[in-house]
């Protein structure tokens, strides 16, 4: 209908014109870039860690550890012979931030595998891990050599194993590894949650604006309240899809330029905590379908909330139950990532309020039987129809009500009688 189309266009054009939209369109990719790069940068502590090896060994172990550490890109290491005053003065150095910490190595390292590290960065898991690996390597080599093994054999035995993981989708091995699947699921969850909440609240404030300015009276005398609500939800939905298109395009550009970014920050592909996954057409389609499903479901509820409130403050309070539904679905994503096929995860992907986040997350993290997707989509579609029916009734009555917010009992009466 032409009037509904005019409402859709108004919502779309006004939003695209707003500064807010373009800020989001530009900041979005920057935000994603930060999420991709920051963990890797943070894990590396942002640069080189300066440490001192306090060598209390009688053999070459201390020197070899120092040499190996200093040779890595992560550390600058210096060897100091152990002594009584050394530890205290080093502690002062650490306090003055000239040193990150110091490693105390004695013969116990080789004998019983014990060493000590004191520093200001003991929570840096990457640093501690690297120290442990280095010490372990040297200690193993020394022990083997002491047992009479040829140092060349030892050197060859030290070659580490890299376990390659690949995800199986639909009986076929894909190019994705576990890290990629995890980051894909993780990002989908974040984006779905943020976008549904953001655009749902957009619908709510749009409804509220028409209510508080009383424009709604003029509109409702020209088209049915349901048509108005429909046009609004479709218009805001179109804006969100447009936003995704922009984000998709800029993500492609970012990815294409990624080697350059990574080169500039001095890190290799393998070092990244988050791996960039390959997003296939099926995944993208599933994402959009569930996003739109979730958006329609939640924006109907947000529209009802906007209609029953008389001011921004009131709406902010009244929207909380709706927002909590979404927050719960988002938080439970982390449980699902551990075991995407658990009963918990299956239940969440059938409940319509959590399915829009749960289903794409599970799809990305593991494999999903087709019947489960079909079932969850059917339930979601039924819920959209049901919730929209209820929301439209609340909307119709609420849009013309002023004064105090309705109680739950009054809401039930609105739904029944309107």
């Amino acid at each position, binding site marked *: 209908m*032409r*009037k509904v189309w*005019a409402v859709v266009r*108004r919502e779309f*054009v*006004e939003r695209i014109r*707003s500064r807010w939209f373009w800020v989001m369109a530009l900041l979005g990719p920057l935000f994603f870039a930060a999420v991709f790069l920051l963990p890797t940068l943070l894990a590396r502590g942002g640069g080189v860690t300066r440490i001192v090896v306090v060598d209390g060994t009688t053999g070459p172990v201390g020197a070899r550890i120092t040499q190996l550490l200093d040779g890595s890109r992560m550390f600058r290491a210096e060897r100091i012979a152990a002594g009584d005053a050394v530890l205290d003065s080093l502690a002062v150095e650490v306090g003055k931030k000239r040193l990150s910490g110091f490693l105390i190595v004695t013969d116990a390292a080789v004998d019983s595998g014990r060493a000590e590290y004191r520093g200001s960065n003991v929570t840096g898991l990457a640093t501690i891990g690297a120290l442990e690996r280095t010490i372990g390597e040297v200690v193993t080599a020394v022990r083997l050599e002491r047992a009479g093994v040829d140092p060349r054999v030892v050197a060859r035995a030290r070659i580490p194993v890299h376990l390659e993981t690949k995800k199986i989708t639909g009986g076929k091995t894909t190019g994705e590894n576990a890290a990629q699947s995890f980051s894909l699921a993780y990002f989908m969850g974040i984006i779905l949650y943020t976008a549904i909440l953001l655009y749902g609240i957009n619908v709510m404030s749009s409804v509220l*604006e028409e209510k*508080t*300015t*009383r*424009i709604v*009276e*003029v*509109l*409702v*005398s*020209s*088209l*049915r309240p349901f048509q108005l609500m429909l046009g609004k939800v479709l218009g805001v939905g179109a804006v969100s899809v447009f936003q995704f298109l922009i984000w998709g395009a800029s993500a492609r550009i970012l990815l294409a330029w990624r080697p350059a970014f990574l080169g500039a920050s001095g890190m290799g592909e393998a070092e990244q905590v988050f791996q960039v996954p390959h997003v296939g057409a099926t995944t993208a389609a599933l994402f959009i379908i569930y996003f739109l499903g979730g958006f329609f479901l939640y924006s109907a509820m947000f529209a009802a909330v906007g209609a029953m409130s008389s001011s921004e403050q009131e709406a902010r309070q009244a929207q909380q139950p709706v927002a909590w539904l979404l927050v719960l679905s988002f938080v439970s994503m982390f449980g699902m990532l551990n075991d995407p096929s658990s009963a918990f995860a299956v239940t969440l992907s059938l409940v319509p309020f959590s399915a829009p986040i749960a289903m794409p997350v599970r799809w990305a993290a593991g494999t999903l039987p087709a019947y489960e997707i079909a079932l969850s989509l059917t339930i979601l579609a039924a819920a959209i129809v049901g919730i929209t029916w209820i929301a439209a009734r609340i909307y119709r009555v609420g849009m*013309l009500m002023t004064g105090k917010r309705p109680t739950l009992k009054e809401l039930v009466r609105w739904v029944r009688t309107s």
Partner: protein
Amino acid sequence: MTTSAHTPTPILVLDRVTKRFAGHTAVDGLSLSVSPGAIYGLLGPNGAGKTTTIRMIMDIIEPDEGTVRLFGERGGGRAHSARIGYLPEERGLYRKMRVLDVIVFLAEMKGVERRAARAKATRWLEQLGLEQWRLRRIDELSKGMQQKVQFISTILHEPELVILDEPFAGLDPVNTRVLKDAVLELTRRGVTVLFSTHIMVQSDMVCDELCIIARGRRLVDGALADIKRTRGGQHLIVGFDGGTGAAGAAGAAGAAAEVFADKRVVKKADDYGRYAELELEPGADPQQILQRLVASGARLSRFELQEPSLNKIFIDLVGPEAARAEVRPDA
């Protein structure tokens, strides 16, 4: 149903329309009819049910009982939205939208094609001296300018019926006059105007027909002239020319005393000899009184019928006691 003889094909008819909200009846069995081309006033104190009535006419809410007929067809305003212009009581516009876009959007809601709406909106903005504001946002406009924009949106689609809810509320005297002129201009073009108000002064000047309601019920309705003629409180001023001197005057007044004493037509008479003020009984015909005075031999220098102001009728009707009873002018 109210069907006046001089309005054969009413543009709007309400027939025993009732709307109840939780706990109270906002509109109670209200019937009225609006003639084409009339300026119709829906008058009543605050909370009388004026806005609820208008909302039922506009299809914004549905009546619990009774029917609304517009342009001879049953049903509220939504089906006829292209033929009706509506300005709600608390007026607002999309604050962040550009002036031109708001007008075009609201015109589209009334079924005007987009390009035609743009052209008309531009013409109207020029006419009202707002052309340099057309690409500005609404919230950059002064209140007076916003009211002009609202008025443009109400009439851009050239409606046959314009419904204004409390159009004069909150307007300064200059803008009140501008709006009043605009309404009169509309009726000159044959547009029917229905407006609600609790301020009687403007209604007295512009209304052709009216309906006074209180507590959701009709107290009086019909043509303004009929109401003024039939509602109580008609005042007659009579002056006598009885030759020179007080005696002559007294003689002339004496001849009229019989007429003044007729309780069927005169409710109250203040006789000052040369001059008398009469309050007539409802329904009394001043023309008859004039004939009887002339027949009595009194020489008249002055015979002036003073119409009661609408304000007085309104206060008489809506006073705590009168508000309970439904009074019909033809009763």
